[in-house]
């Protein structure tokens, strides 16, 4: 172990700079310990204690002393390097003046950067979401709570807390909203207009807003409430707030409400508020008896499509049509071979699946599903269809550990091939959802698989018809007409809406005369 020292006369550096330089000198090749100090008696004795100096040095407090310890043959080069480093002017980095201000790390901190913020969109893991929503509400922000797995008691507490502050909580588990023309989370780019929508179902809201857009209408606001809002214990707080706000909003002339049928008590409260709105209100309580809904300015719609059609008609000053559209002409019989008799719906949208179940049950009797309308219709093995089956592939049972089927088409493509190989299948029903958050090119994902189904069918001589619809708009990032063209090109029979697609499928099996117990 060797030592070496160097004295630079009358050369001053402050002690902090020197400590810093010492640290860099210690990293020079062959150096074990290094120190650069002003050679005051105190510092010199420190170096002696540290074993860096063994002999007295002839230096004063005005001299800079470098002391190194390490490999004998490396020290000379290291001393030279140390001296030249000392004599370098300090790096100009001391003044590049660029502040690295840190990004906001809490909602409150974010408010410092965005003083006019009026909504917090929260999509954290569910176990943290309620706390974030409370903070947002406490700070005066409305909340859209995309997160799911929020406990019902938290939802109730949040909504009451919000209500007391004249704020709204959209959610939890609220996938879609359009506020002031801005699509939030999974939403479509729809034309602005006079129709305001409040919906407890994300895909339901998407279907209604897209159809309104398709038929020339526009949306003032689309307010999501989350699927549990009309639960008896929540009492429809958000839907009532949304309805009241749209009633008071001068830019809204027609209101649409979408939900599964609420408990009679909550339904009564919502319908009373709808009557008080003083504007036409179209209500689609999926599966409810229209007669129970219809009153005064309140119109009942049996399907999402009917709700959109009625709203557009009312907005244009026309009477909403009574009942659904006529059964569409049947174009499919020629596809079908004897024995092809069942429908298999492979849905990515939960509400579409539920609506299909409702409509098909009326036409065909028993329809199995993982999200059945009646308990007796529950599919015992969700991975295997039986007779008429519609599955919601967005259900937790399928999405555990993998992305939602609106984002990742692999799961549905696999299931599609499986269903197509079943000789008893007559029609495969599909939804295709566009908009922000959805896959950037769903048709591109689906066409190769549909092609494969047709190729296989070419050999066996028969294949099921593939019937679907695209929920989207011309202004969506994926572009509605481009997606529709690609799917048609691949042989998919496309309807405008879920309800129409379902009716085409139902008609196919009915006309083919293969439905047991019905003719």
């Amino acid at each position, binding site marked *: 172990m060797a030592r070496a020292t160097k004295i630079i006369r009358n050369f001053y550096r402050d002690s*902090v*700079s020197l*400590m*810093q330089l*010492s*640290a860099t000198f210690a990293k020079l090749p062959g150096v074990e*310990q290094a*120190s650069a*100090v002003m050679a005051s008696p*105190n510092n010199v004795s*420190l*170096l002696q204690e540290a074993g860096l100096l063994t002999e007295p040095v002839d230096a004063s407090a005005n001299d800079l002393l470098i002391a190194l310890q390490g490999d004998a043959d490396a020290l000379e080069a290291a001393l030279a390097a140390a001296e030249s480093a000392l004599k370098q002017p300090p790096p100009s*980095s*001391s*003044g*590049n003046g660029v*502040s*690295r201000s*840190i*990004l*906001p*790390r*809490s*909602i*409150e*901190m*974010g*408010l410092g950067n*965005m003083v*006019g*913020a*009026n*909504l917090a*969109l*929260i*999509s*954290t893991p569910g*176990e*943290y979401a*309620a*706390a*974030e929503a409370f*903070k947002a509400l*406490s*700070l*005066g*922000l409305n909340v859209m709570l995309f997160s799911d797995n929020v406990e019902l008691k938290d939802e109730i507490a949040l909504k009451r807390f919000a209500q007391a502050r*004249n704020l709204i909580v959209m959610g939890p588990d609220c996938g879609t909203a359009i*506020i*002031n*023309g*801005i*699509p*939030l*989370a999974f939403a479509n780019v729809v034309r602005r207009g006079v129709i305001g929508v409040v919906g407890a179902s994300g895909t339901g809201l998407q279907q209604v807003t897209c159809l309104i857009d398709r038929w020339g209408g526009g949306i003032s*606001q689309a307010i999501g409430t989350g699927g549990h809002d009309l639960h008896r214990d929540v009492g429809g707080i958000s839907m009532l707030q949304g309805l*009241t*706000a749209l009633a008071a*909003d001068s830019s809204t002339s027609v209101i649409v409400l979408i939900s599964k049928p609420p408990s009679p008590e909550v339904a009564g409260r919502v319908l009373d508020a709808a009557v008080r709105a003083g504007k036409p209100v179209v209500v689609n309580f999926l599966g409810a008896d229209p007669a129970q809904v219809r009153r005064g300015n309140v119109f009942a719609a049996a399907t999402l499509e009917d709700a959109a059609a009625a709203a557009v008609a009312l907005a244009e000053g026309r009477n909403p049509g009574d009942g659904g559209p006529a059964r569409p002409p049947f174009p499919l019989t020629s596809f079908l071979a004897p024995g092809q008799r069942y429908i298999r719906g492979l849905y990515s949208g939960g509400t579409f699946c539920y609506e299909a179940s409702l409509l098909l049950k009326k036409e065909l009797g028993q329809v199995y599903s993982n999200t059945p309308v009646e308990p007796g219709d529950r599919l015992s093995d969700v991975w295997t269809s039986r007779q008429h089956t519609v599955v919601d592939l967005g259900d937790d049972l399928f999405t555990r550990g993998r992305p939602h089927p609106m984002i990742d088409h692999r799961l549905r493509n696999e299931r599609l091939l499986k269903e197509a190989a079943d000789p008893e299948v007559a029609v495969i029903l599909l939804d295709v959802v566009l908009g922000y*958050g959805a896959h950037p090119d769903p048709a591109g994902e689906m066409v190769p698989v549909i092609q494969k189904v047709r190729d296989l069918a070419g050999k066996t001589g028969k294949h099921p018809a593939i019937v679907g619809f695209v929920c989207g708009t011309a202004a969506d990032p994926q572009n509605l007409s481009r997606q529709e063209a690609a799917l048609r090109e691949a042989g998919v029979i496309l309807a405008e809406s879920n309800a129409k697609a379902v009716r085409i499928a139902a008609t196919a099996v009915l006309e083919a005369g293969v439905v047991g117990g019905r003719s």
Partner: protein
Amino acid sequence: MIQALFQEKLQVLNVGLSSFADSIAQAGGSALQIEWAPPAQGRQEVGRELARLVNLSAVEIANRTAFDAYQSAQPVLRGVGLAGQVLPNMAERMILHSGPPIAWNDMCGPMKGAIVGAILYEGWAENPAKAEALASRGEITFEPCHHHSAVGPMAGAISPSMPVWMVTNTTQGNQAFSNFNEGLGKALRFGANGPEVIARLKWMGQVLAPALRAGVETLGGLELKTLMAQALHMGDEVHNRNVAASSLFLKRLISALLKTRTPAANIAAVVDFIAGNDHFFLNLSMAACKAMLDAAHGVSGSSMVTAMARNGVEFGIRVSGTGGQWFTTAAPVVDGLFFPGYTTADAAPDLGDSAITETAGVGGFAMAASPAIVKFVGGTPQDAIDNTTTMTHITLGRNNAFTLPSMNFAGSPAGIDIRKVVDTGIQPIINTGIAHRDAGVGQIGAGITHAPLGCFTQAVSALAHAVGGSE
């Protein structure tokens, strides 16, 4: 009503999936992404308690009261006394130490060394071995300085015969105390207790203290806040850099000393001693900070931190609204630069009451005033400004008395809010010296450290229970 939202431009704070903020922007809307991570170190129940406290009016009102008291406090150096005579509740065989409470057996090396030194100084034992035996027999009471309105750097050992600074907050009338700074090298506060250390302590008691008492008396009191503010404009942050403040103090003191009956030789020795110690003012800075923060302590519901202190084993904080309770967690090891021959392996965990300066909005919080300090971790003057700016996100306000030239004379961020610390995960920054882990070696470096989040998480939970914040 909700429909008011329909009349405004939608401005969204996005917490979670960042693609949602991107699509809002793409659609022509306005969204700001929050860099979110589970708050309260992922402890959900504390996260919920925190949520109840955010913008809660009881807490907001309490914080205004506490912060105003801190801001309006006027610490004035009023005199020099003996700890045993002037510290509240100081008992005969009692030695005070830094940080939260700790038993003799659990103390770190430097603190044990300092306690032994204090015993020797008091003459309660004739050698270190007997002093240790005395301490371990439980014949001496150990209490935190903070429990006696006092603060001490590093080990913070204060025994009854030691001289202390007496600072009075003339606005609210509370007093604060600190011991005298011994200078660098072998010093009691680093656990050194050899004959030269005891001899210096004796000199400080017999020569320095009477001279300073006479000098301060002649001055008729010295306003510390203005002196600290002036030093901030001269490159100090009055925690780890006190060159300017010590000089300003000495400048005021010399002429006062000359007007006293202190023998000329003593004056010369006193002036030499102070002039040779760039940290001489530190203990005054600390006592001033303690006086300002005690004024803010004890406001029911307030989430303002009124003390951060370390005993070399634990880091502890006290909060205005939770009374005398300490919230503690393991003291961190400081990242910094080391004197020749030393490394992190030699360092004692964070030690001393001096983080009272950061608690009061100076030290690391006023780093923008003191670019020289940031070099301890290899930073630039811009880093100093950034550090101060970051602290604005966890504080209640700015101290208008402590202005920062490099930040266009903005006040330094002050009044740490436990809610903001826990919500953002931003840890209070502390400039500090580093003591050797073994008693008596002394200071081996200096650097920057951060107050550990665990203390703040506990404090949020305690405050939530105190406030009873259920909606």
